[in-house]
C-alpha cells in the first residue's frame, strides 16, 4: 500500500472520483496545467482532459456561481479556492445561492458541489494566506463543513463530500499537507460525513479539536499522560453537521471538556460545542468547559505568527486550568 501525505490523499480521491463518475469535474485557478499551487490537482488534466479539469478566469465570484449552475445540471463540480482567504468574493453565491437552493425549490434543484480550500496558519505565508474561518460557513444553514486532519481522513472524507448531494465546504489544513505520510488504500471507501473520530481514549478529560491543531492536541495528550492526566482526544472532522453524541458520550465518561482550535476564540465553533455540552450534559461536568483558541486578532504577518499559533504548552495550560477547578 502506498504511503501518502494529506495533499496526495486529496489528489488520490480526486482521481478516484473522476474515474468513477463522469459527472465529476474540477475547476479553479491554476488547477489544470499547473496542477494547483499546492499540487492537489496534479495529473488530473492529463488524465481527464481540459473539458473536465478547468482553469477558470481569475474570479472567485464566478467560481461560486458557475458551480451552482453546473451542479443544477447534475454535474458534481469540485472547485478549488486557492486559499481560504480568497473565498470571500464567492460568499454571495455560497451563502445566498448554494446553501439555499434545495430549500428554496423544495428539493427540485439540488447542488452536489464541493468547495475545497487550503486553510490555517503556521507556514509563514503572506497576508490573507493563513486564515481559519470555518465558523463563518458553519453558521450558514444548508452548508456542510468538513476538515480532515490525516491522509486517510482526507481521502475518505473527500470521497464522501463529492458523493454528497449537499454543498460541502472542504477545508484542508495546509500546515500538515506534507508533514506525515500514512498508508492509504485507494479503495473508494468513503467515510461518514457526520461522525467524529476518537483518536485516543482517556478517562480524565475530553479534548476536541480539528484540522492541524489535532497534531498539537495529541502531543499535549502525550505530555499530560506523563503527568498522570489521561486525555481522550476527538478529531471533530465534520464541523457541520456536528457529531455532538460522540462528544457527549466522552464527556459523560471524563466529566471534563477542553476545546482546541486555531481560529479566533470568540464566536467560533468551540463556542457552539460548549453551548451544546452545557445544554445537554451540564450535570455530567466536573469543571467549567475550557477553550484554547487563537487570539481575537487578524492573523499577524509571519514575524509574529508563532505567538498566535497554538502550542502544546497552551493546551496543557488550558487542561491544567480545567483540572484545577474540578470538584
Amino acid at each position, binding site marked *: 500500500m502506498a504511503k501518502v501525505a494529506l495533499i496526495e490523499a486529496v489528489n488520490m480521491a480526486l482521481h478516484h472520483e473522476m474515474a468513477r463518475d463522469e459527472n465529476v469535474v474540477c475547476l479553479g485557478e491554476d488547477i489544470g496545467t499547473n496542477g494547483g499551487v499546492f499540487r492537489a490537482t496534479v495529473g488530473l488534466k492529463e488524465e481527464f482532459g481540459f473539458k473536465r479539469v478547468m482553469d477558470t478566469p481569475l474570479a472567485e465570484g464566478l467560481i461560486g456561481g458557475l458551480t451552482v449552475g453546473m451542479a443544477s445540471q447534475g454535474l458534481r463540480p469540485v472547485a478549488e479556492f486557492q486559499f481560504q482567504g480568497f473565498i470571500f468574493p464567492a460568499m454571495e453565491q455560497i451563502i445566498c445561492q448554494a446553501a439555499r437552493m434545495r430549500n428554496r425549490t423544495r428539493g427540485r434543484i439540488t447542488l452536489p458541489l464541493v468547495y475545497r480550500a487550503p486553510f490555517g496558519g503556521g507556514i509563514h505565508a*503572506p497576508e490573507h494566506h493563513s486564515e481559519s474561518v470555518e465558523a463563518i460557513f458553519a453558521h450558514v444553514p444548508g452548508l456542510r463543513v468538513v476538515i480532515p486532519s490525516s491522509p486517510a481522513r482526507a481521502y475518505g472524507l473527500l470521497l464522501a463530500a463529492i458523493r454528497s448531494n449537499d454543498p460541502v465546504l472542504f477545508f484542508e489544513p495546509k500546515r500538515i499537507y506534507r508533514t506525515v505520510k500514512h498508508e492509504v488504500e485507494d479503495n473508494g471507501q468513503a467515510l461518514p460525513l457526520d461522525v467524529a473520530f476518537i483518536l485516543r481514549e482517556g478517562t480524565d478529560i475530553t479534548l476536541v479539536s480539528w484540522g492541524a491543531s489535532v497534531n498539537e492536541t495529541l502531543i499535549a495528550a502525550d505530555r499530560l499522560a506523563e503527568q498522570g492526566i489521561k486525555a481522550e482526544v476527538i478529531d471533530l472532522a465534520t464541523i457541520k453537521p456536528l457529531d455532538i453524541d460522540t462528544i457527549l458520550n466522552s464527556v459523560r465518561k471524563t466529566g471534563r471538556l477542553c476545546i482546541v482550535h486555531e481560529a479566533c476564540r470568540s464566536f467560533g465553533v468551540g463556542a457552539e460545542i460548549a453551548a451544546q455540552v452545557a445544554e445537554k450534559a451540564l450535570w455530567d461536568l466536573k469543571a467549567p468547559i475550557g477553550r484554547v483558541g487563537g487570539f481575537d486578532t487578524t492573523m*499577524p504577518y509571519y514575524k509574529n505568527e508563532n505567538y498566535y499559533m497554538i502550542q502544546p504548552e497552551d493546551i496543557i495550560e488550558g487542561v491544567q486550568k480545567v483540572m484545577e477547578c474540578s470538584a
Partner: protein
Amino acid sequence: MTFTSKSTITQLQYLDEEGNVVQPLPAWADNLDLLVEFYRHMVLVRTYDKKAIALQRTGQMGTYPSHLGAEAIGIGVGAAMDVEDVYVPYYRDMPTMYMRGATMVHNMLYWGGTEQGSYFHRPDGKLSEDFPICVPIATQCTHATGVASAFKLRGEKRVAVTAIGDGGTSKGDFLEAINCAGAWQLPCIFVINNNQWAISVPRAIQCGAPTLAQKAIGAGIPGVQVDGNDIIAVYDAMLTALNRARAGKGATLIEAVSYRLSDHTTADDATRYRGSEEVNAAWKREPVKRLRNYLHNAGVWNEDKEQALQAECNAKVEEAVQQYLNHPKEPPESMMDHHFEQLVEPLASQREELIKKAMRMEGGQSHG
C-alpha cells in the same frame, strides 16, 4: 447601417525594442535629464528586486513577488503622479510605491512579515495617504474609485491611481470600479500591468477580447494600450490621463503590455507551465535595456556612467538591507493594539495572556 458606438484601440509606442525612436517624441521628452532620472530609478528597483529574491532564498524574507520586467510601468506611473495624488497599489507594485515614498526598507518589512512595512511617508515627509500593498485581487480598484469620488466631492484637483494584473481584470471588482468611474466621471486612473500571465494562466484563456484596454469601452471611459516596456509611452499616457482627470473629464484605463520575466512569486516555478523560448523572446523587449540604448544614442549615457550607477545602486540596496535586518522588531502584543481605536475586551485580557505566552516561548517558564 448606423453606428451607435464605434471604438478602436491602438497601442502607444515611442521606442522600439532596440531603443530606436518610432515616432516623434512628445515635447516633455526633450528633457533628457528627466529620462536619465527614470533610468536611474529603473536600475535601482531592478537591483533591489534581485536582492529581494536572494533574501527570500536565504530565509531572510518571506514569499516575494518580483517586478522584473515591470520597471517601466512602475517608475513611469509613479513619476507622473503628483505627491498630492493617491496611489492604490497591488502586490507587484514596489517600483510605483518606491516612487511615492514607500522605501525599499518598507517593502522588505512587508514581505519580511511585519505590518510595519505599511506605515510610510510621502517623499515630502508628510504621512502618506496611499494605500498599503493589496493582496486580494482587484479589491483595490473599488478603493481607488472611492478615493476619487472623495476628491470629486471636495472639488480637489487630485487623482486616484490604481494598478492591477491582467488576470485581475477578470474579477467583478475591476469591472464594477471602472463602470462607476465612468458613470460618475471620476478623477481615477486604472493601470493594467498586462504581463501575460496570472500565475500559470496565460492571457489568452483569461479573456476572449483581443485587448484588455477595450474593457474601458463598456465603462464609457477612454481605454489606451501602451507598450509597457517603453517608459516614454507609459509616462506620456499617464500625463494625458492625469490632465484629463484634473480637468474634470473623468477616468482612463491604461493597459500596459509587458511580460513577467520572473516566476509569479518566489513560491512559484514558472518552468512548469511556460517554455523558455517565450521568455527569451520577452527579454529582447525588456524595458531597462531599451531606455539605456536610447540614452546612449542620445549621447547622455555611456559605459562609465553605467558602471558608476550599478555601484551606486548596489550600495543603496545594501544599505537598505542592513536597515531592514536591524529594524527593531515589534513586540508580539502589537498584534492586539491596532484593531480598534481603544483596546477593548477580550483583546485587553488576551494581551496580558500573550505577554505571558511570549515569555514562556522565550524560555522564561516551562510546562509539560
